[in-house]
């Protein structure tokens, strides 16, 4: 019984079942505050109702942290999925997909009207890539050393352990399909090339 609610900073005190998962990163408070201030509508959570021993409670089962950035003139105005996380009890139910679709719905129309949605995923995380492909995402480019500790300088030195795929999904505003491509896996870039 999933309901969607706006994320509030106090929710950080209740996200342990989600953030203790080794796949989910926890950041400093400033990071969350920045998203809540800059893109308040693009940060939301899913909640579940449970009842044990007649005590009804709502718990956070997942959340979506998104933003909109880039220049329209450069065809870079887009929605970015910064984090989408789901509590392990509520996986394989399509919840992550639902959170992604909700973000897409919120940004494809006014006031955002972005050209595409994108996200970064580890090259080795094939499970997540499959999920995003099902949702209509495709690889746009490979970001060499995205998850590495140092900034790489050579985009030809690929390393599956620290490289990411930048995956994109077209939104209706890009009528000419200029922001996606079919051979994305053959395009390597450096992390410094993907800042907006």
């Amino acid at each position, binding site marked *: 019984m999933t309901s969607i*609610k706006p994320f509030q900073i*106090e929710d*950080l005190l209740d996200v*342990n079942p989600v953030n203790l998962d080794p*796949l989910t990163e926890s950041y400093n408070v400033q990071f969350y505050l920045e998203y809540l201030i800059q893109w*308040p509508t693009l940060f939301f959570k899913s909640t579940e109702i449970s009842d044990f021993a007649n005590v009804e409670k709502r718990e956070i089962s997942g959340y979506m942290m998104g933003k909109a950035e880039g220049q329209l003139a450069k065809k870079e105005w887009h929605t970015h999925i910064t984090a989408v996380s789901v509590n392990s009890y*509520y996986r394989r139910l*399509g919840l992550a997909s639902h959170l992604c679709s909700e973000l897409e719905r919120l940004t494809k*129309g*006014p006031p955002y009207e972005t050209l595409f949605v994108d996200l970064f995923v580890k090259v080795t995380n094939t499970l997540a890539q499959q999920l995003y492909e099902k949702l209509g995402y495709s690889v746009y480019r490979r970001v060499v050393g995205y998850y590495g500790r140092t900034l790489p300088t050579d985009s030809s030195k690929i390393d599956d352990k620290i490289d990411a795929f930048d995956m994109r999904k077209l939104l209706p505003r890009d009528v000419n399909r200029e922001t996606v491509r079919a051979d994305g896996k053959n395009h390597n870039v450096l992390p410094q090339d993907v800042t907006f």
Partner: protein
Amino acid sequence: MSETDASILSAIDQGQFSLAQSLLSRKLKKFPNKSYYWAVNCYLLVSLGKHEEALSQSNALKEKVPSDPHALEMLYKVFELLGRPKDANMIYENAVKKYPSADLIECWFQLAVSKFDIKTMQKAAMALQKHKKGDRKLAMRAAFCCLNLALSKVCKITEKEATLYSNLGEKLLELFDFVSGSTQEVYVYCKLLKNNEKYQEIALLLSSYEGTLDLDLQLLYLDALDKLEKWEELYLLAKKLLFEVQFNDFDTWKYLIRASKNTSRDYVECQDLISLHRPSTRNSQLAAIEAAKLYEKPVDALILNYYKNFSSKLCCYTDISYYQPTPFIDKIKETTSEILASSKVNTASLITLVNNQKFIQTWDDKLDKLAFIAANWAIYHKFQPLLAEKVETDAYSANELILMNVVLSLEDKSASNIVKNIITLEHLLDKDPQDFKVRLLLLHLYASINCDSLAVHNYNKLRIKMFQHESLSHLIVDSMTPTKANLQELINIYRFYLSADGELNESVSLAFEKEVYNKLESFTLFSIKLKNSLSRYVLLLQLIKFCRILNDHQYLNYFSRIVQEHELEVSEGSLDVLDNRDYTTLWSFGSQPNTSKLPTVKRGKEYVQLMCAKELLILENDFTKTTKLIKQFNKALNSEKIHDQLAQHEQWTFKLLLNLFKLFKQPPSKESEALVNFLVKNLKLEKIKLVASGAGLNRCLFEVLEFIKIYEQISRRNGFKSEILLKAVANVAQEIKNSKLTDLTLSEIDNVSADDVPRESATEVVEMIKKSLKESSYKKCI
């Protein structure tokens, strides 16, 4: 601020008082009419501990009603340090009344923001909007501040006052047109209307709003229609959101079902509509059950249908438990037998079995515990091939069955049984290192038997960091023993609070500037929760204890000063403490609630009050203040709630402390002899053995070690001398040094093993535990 001005402040903050005094004297001579330097002089006096002089000079300056923002800020700080927040605010109120400039009021507002002071924010925002009447942004801000105060759970305002503030906020905005306003403006207005129960106005505004409703507004709209019982409108809106917009939200399903029933649509029509939802989801299937419940129709068949479709999902047990159906235990047992009889091993079957075991534990009145435990292990082993196949980051669901076994086994709380369960959990983690639920329980068990280094190791392995410390640090902080490594761990945790304070300060201010009102209420509340956090206080007090035992005087002074800032609240017993600890996640597995938990002491507000009074008593030598503090210490120690917040041995050590404080922090009296006798009688190893045993013994010895340090510190500063007490303290210190008390615990766990875990793995874990116990022994601090 000039360079010299900055050097004066820096000299004061660094304790270079002579330098500060000489620099300041020159300034006061050159600018005798500049209120700022007189305010700095007050600050110098406070820092020198000359509180009475500082207060009298600050009051004199306050009477002159200064208007220089720097002077006001400094004077505000002085009054705060003197524990007079009302006076601190009054200097701004007076200045604003006498010199009502927008800049000055804005300074006042920003100061309130930086202090997360919701009441003053409202006052300053009101003053500013009054000063610039008609300014939409300022009116909006003032209205939000009224709303924030009315909704505040921490400001202790009456219901009547809350209504007044809501009405005032609404009145500030009544002349504005919101149909084309921003979503943030509409949010503030609608929330005020909601507080004033004006749902009609909300519905009217949101139905005609020209922009797109964001999630906050959409939820407000649905709620307003529901409250107004506008069932047809609610039905159409909910239907549109669910079927056209694809907003698959269970609360919206509930609105749809409620509206359906109240518009006299019959049950069949409602179920038909639900079944039309594409794709059929967990929410829509649960909506069918919800509809049956609301229409008062049988739910069991629908629940069985849900079970059929979702038994292989981990949410199945939780979802079905919510509806409390007639137990279908035969069906459960039948499914379990079928799966176990089959040679197929896949994740779906395993999850079904995990769910089934939870149902069996909940519903089977005659559950054979041993058979249940054995069945859980059998499932764990049968599906073990999945461990090799699964993606590293995916949890092995059968671990949960073993967690249920551990909880059942914890009815026996002996050290050897805890070690046995630790061996089991280590075995699970060896096969599946990413399962955080296993690791969380493991760390809890380690902490309960004094294996600090292993508890901390697992805390760090869980990558608990930043804001997670606030809700989870209690898992280790309280049971840690004072070693240098642990002190460093605690300091690292404390750093989170220091950086969060700064980050929140900046962000609250920025959110006001950017008018992000639908997040600001939570921003301020979160800031207050962290500022007055119970975990933060417990951490601080533990840090002080560690520094004292480990003779780290620099950190001891630093952390003690923080407690001193709360002197007034502690003396008056009015310290605000908010509890944000998470006690749920640790036990969120199996067929909750898990009841066989280990008996742990849960610190609370009274503990913080008691510990702060203790620290202040150690530092304070003024008998007027110590008498007041001893009264608070005694009151906290005798409060009903404190008993669950202290271990048995702590109740004893706090009594020792009370006697010590009465002896050294009050003028000598007839009582002195009796106090000395009590201490001499208790400061014996034999007595320690009576008040503590098991894991508590090691902790008790640390308490006694700290007591000795406190005795050494405060007996030096006071004229009272007692040779027998001095001798008793020296004797007990020697006795502790020579004793082998905790060796007993080590022998208790020799040869412990666990069924289903290879012998060599068990021996390895036992050796690891023994090493950790030795590392956290009191002997390390002697």
